């Protein structure tokens, strides 16, 4: 007991040291000095589906383009350095900034009260609005006031999400990319999409199936996010932005990207009055951690449901695949073997994308629940099939011969003699696969399923409490998977006892 306590104590101390070491110490020299010394500035953005902000040039994907790329280059030129983009998931730009991964983040980041607690904002460089987009044939939705009872898509962590969440009776679907919501809208999976005007202008306007509904709503400011202690850098960036505005360079960039409108005239006020960059959009209020539990638990429920149902599919389909592979003639054995190899040899994520976003191209549109069930189940079936096969091969050959010599048919012998023994051998593996599937179910968040991981990333992105919520979410996963492995171990023991 004493030894156990000693080890525990060491563990806690060790963890403390690791966390301490992982937290970046405050930079001693200012970031501005570092940029000059380095010869280039590092700006954080998410170029994945990031048009028209920052995205790979369709003509030469190794180059980034976008209005923020132009802006970054102008800023860099004013500082006498080069601009280098640092790729980061949009959701985690601010944590990455705090960690010191880059000098500042500039990627359509809206000024909000919540964010202002964590970062310093430059003067705003763009005034955005939220644009509602619907299908061309949609006549009942004319503005955001008509969204009650409708399913509306938006991007995780955006102000549009906050607006939608604040409206009663709207079924909000959160995406992590900007392409998918409009795709789903065109396919009829959504009734409307609310997103920042630049996104709508780039992705929705050219789509003949979609149209803008109503005037832009809300109004907010994009600004550069800077680490709290980088006051010097903020001052310099404000000067540079004011100069770019005065010289008309900013306007030229926006005109180039079709983003200039009368609203931008108001930017002048900010450059004259340096400290009036308050957010214009209402924040969802700060809430105690307790208040997130209902949503997280609901997400956990969805996770359990998806895992259990797709594991059942995997177990059943896996058995069929094994029997086909081992006992059916051509071409079935060949088909089963190919299925297993293909599913094991390609990433689950790709399979999910093809099921959910790919199949609609050939006219098959699955809802997220069905796509998640099929995606996970069909993938794991390949693994279960291999486990069964190993189990069957591990049953001594004499068992089948003894059964046959008693006059049993092959089918009866399989069912009554071979499979019960094979399953027992495969059981530990199947259990482990279930636990793995349980965790892999987090991948279905990419196909608009709001399960535990998706709930976490939504909550974390809108509250920026990645650590707290992350620990709680991890504990929820562990709390569910651990009893599972205990139960499995007991089953295994029981079967072993029966055998003796």
């Amino acid at each position: 007991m004493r030894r156990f306590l000693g080890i525990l104590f060491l563990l806690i101390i060790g963890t403390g040291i690791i966390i301490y070491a992982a937290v970046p110490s405050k930079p001693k020299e200012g970031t501005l000095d570092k940029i000059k010394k380095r010869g280039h500035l590092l700006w954080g953005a998410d170029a994945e589906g990031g048009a028209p902000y920052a995205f790979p040039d369709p003509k030469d994907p190794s180059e980034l383009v976008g209005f923020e790329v132009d802006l970054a280059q102008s800023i860099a030129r004013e500082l006498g350095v080069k601009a280098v983009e640092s790729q980061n998931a949009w959701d985690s730009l601010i944590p990455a900034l705090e960690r010191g991964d880059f000098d500042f983040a500039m990627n359509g980041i809206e000024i909000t009260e919540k964010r202002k607690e964590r970062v310093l904002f430059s003067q705003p460089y763009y005034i955005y609005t939220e644009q509602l987009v619907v299908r061309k044939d949609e006549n009942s939705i004319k503005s955001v006031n008509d969204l009650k009872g409708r399913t509306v898509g938006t991007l995780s962590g955006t102000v549009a999400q906050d607006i939608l969440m604040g409206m009663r009776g709207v079924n909000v679907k959160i995406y992590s990319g900007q392409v998918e919501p409009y795709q789903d809208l065109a396919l009829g999976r959504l009734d409307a999409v609310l997103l920042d005007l630049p996104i709508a202008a780039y992705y929705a306007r050219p789509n003949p199936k979609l149209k803008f509904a109503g005037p832009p709503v809300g109004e907010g400011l994009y600004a550069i996010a800077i680490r709290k202690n980088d006051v010097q850098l903020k001052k310099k960036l404000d000067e540079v932005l004011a100069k770019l505005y005065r010289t008309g360079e900013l306007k030229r960039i926006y005109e180039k990207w079709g983003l200039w409108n009368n609203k931008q005239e108001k930017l002048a006020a900010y450059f004259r009055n340096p400290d009036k960059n308050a957010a214009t959009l209402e924040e969802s209020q700060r809430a105690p951690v307790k208040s997130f539990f209902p949503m997280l638990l609901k997400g956990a429920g969805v996770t359990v449901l998806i895992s259990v149902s797709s594991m059942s599919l995997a177990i059943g389909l896996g058995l069929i695949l094994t029997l086909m592979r081992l006992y059916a003639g051509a071409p079935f054995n060949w088909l089963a073997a190919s299925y297993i190899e293909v599913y094991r040899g390609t990433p689950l994520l790709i399979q999910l994308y093809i099921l959910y976003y790919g199949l609609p191209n050939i006219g098959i549109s699955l809802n997220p629940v069905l796509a998640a069930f099929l995606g996970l189940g069909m993938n794991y079936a390949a693994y279960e099939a291999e486990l069964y096969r190993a189990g069957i091969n591990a049953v001594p050959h004499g068992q089948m011969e003894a059964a046959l010599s008693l006059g049993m048919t092959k089918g009866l012998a399989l069912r009554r003699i071979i499979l019960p023994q094979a399953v027992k051998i495969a059981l530990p593996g199947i259990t482990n696969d279930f636990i793995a599937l349980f965790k892999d179910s987090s991948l279905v968040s990419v196909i608009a399923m709001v399960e535990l991981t998706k709930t976490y990333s939504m909550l974390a992105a809108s509250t920026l409490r990645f650590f707290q919520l992350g620990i709680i979410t991890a504990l929820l996963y562990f709390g569910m998977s651990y009893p599972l492995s205990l139960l499995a171990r007991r089953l295994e023991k029981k079967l072993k006892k029966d055998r003796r």
Partner: protein
Amino acid sequence: MISVRDLYKSFGTNTLFAGVSLQVEKGEAVVLIGPSGSGKSTVLRCINGLEMFDRGEITVAGIELHSINRKRPSKEDAENIRRVRLKLGMVFQQFNLFPHMTVLQNITEAPVRVLGMSRREAEEIARGILRQINLESKVNSYPAQLSGGEQQRVAIARALAMRPEAMLFDEPTSSLDPEMAGEVLSVIRKLVEDGMTTLIVTHEMGFAREVADRVVVFDKGTIIETGPPEDIFTNPKVPRTREFLNRVLK
């Protein structure tokens, strides 16, 4: 009862049999002896359809098995194989009891599922056989809880519960120590005395001499000698038989 005529059999390019013939009459006890690798097991396995053969003909209780050299026998062939298996009981060197079933379940599984017997009737028969071989107390044990000799006796009981017309034994005592071998041999002896048609592969020469009506000597895939046990054991005509007997009786 069992007749093998002009059997050809090869494994890949290795020819094992090139024209083996063998008869077992009803009620007769035939013992196969010979060096290991000489083809004794393969003959038994061909007879009950566990092994395909290339040429020749096997007849069991009037049912004919033809040279079934295809991977997938036709429906008719498959049905014949099954009918033959219902006429024959087979006992393996490795017992091959079903480890996930109790002794009683091992014995009743096939009568219930294959013959469609009621569970009650099957259990009654099973208990009767177990009583005769002194294993009634083990009905609810699992195979892993039994000694080797007990397991092999259960395996015999399992085969007998199907009411076969003949029994095939492939070295039934080779994985047992002498004491346990004795238990098993006395069960087989009793069967032979009761008139069961039996074909036994064994290395127990004393036992062979005692129960056999006829002894068949195998060597390298051919039958080199056959005759009543007194002749084979005291006065073998073929030198290779003598050599073999000298080796094993020493």
